[in-house]
């Protein structure tokens, strides 16, 4: 069964450094998402992406964050200058359609900011 893959599984970065988290969505999916889950807290929506542009973003998704689909398969989340509070699990998801379709999640990237 097709799945969403994320790399790396764990990223350790010094505060202030830039990180890029990578995702390969399911190939025929058109809608892409990033969520994060701080340890012990609920999963929070960051951003949705369709047709090469952001369709919605949350308050968390400030100027330090950006997303890109650099080619036909990858979907990336960049954090420009990481803060301690960016430490979390970051999940990528994709869906085939926008209405009444499940989102398929990757296993996440654990981001640890030191």
């Amino acid at each position, binding site marked *: 069964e097709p799945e*969403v893959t994320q790399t790396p599984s764990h990223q350790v970065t010094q505060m202030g450094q830039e990180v890029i988290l990578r995702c390969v969505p399911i190939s025929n999916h058109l809608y892409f998402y990033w969520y994060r889950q701080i340890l012990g807290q*609920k*999963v929070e929506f960051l951003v949705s992406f369709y047709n090469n542009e952001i369709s919605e973003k949350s308050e968390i998704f400030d100027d330090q964050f950006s997303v890109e689909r650099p080619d036909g398969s990858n979907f990336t989340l960049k954090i420009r200058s990481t803060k301690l509070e960016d430490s979390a699990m970051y999940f990528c998801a994709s869906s085939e359609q*926008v*209405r009444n379709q*499940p*989102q398929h999640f990757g296993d996440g990237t654990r981001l640890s900011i030191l």
Partner: protein
Amino acid sequence: SQQGEEDPQALSIQEGENATMNCSYKTSINNLQWYRQNSGRGLVHLILIRSNEREKHSGRLRVTLDTSKKSSSLLITASRAADTASYFCATVVVQGAQKLVFGQGTRLTINP
């Protein structure tokens, strides 16, 4: 205010018993979805129920939706040790994009 809240926060039962988890939400929704998360893993989609549906089945899973009470329940019948995980409801609101709004989750432990 929280959009999706699960109840109970933790549930521990014996293998073979049924497990029921509840979810309440506050705004109108387009659909409600249940996901499972094993420790350290991603979220696995279990079932989606649309706002005009009242009940849905998938294998040992049964989901109900009561839009008048803004609540949903997930029933897992004949539980197995492998069902041990956290279970989340997530809502998709009517007006807006398709972001999922998750609850805090129910941590389900199945004792052998």
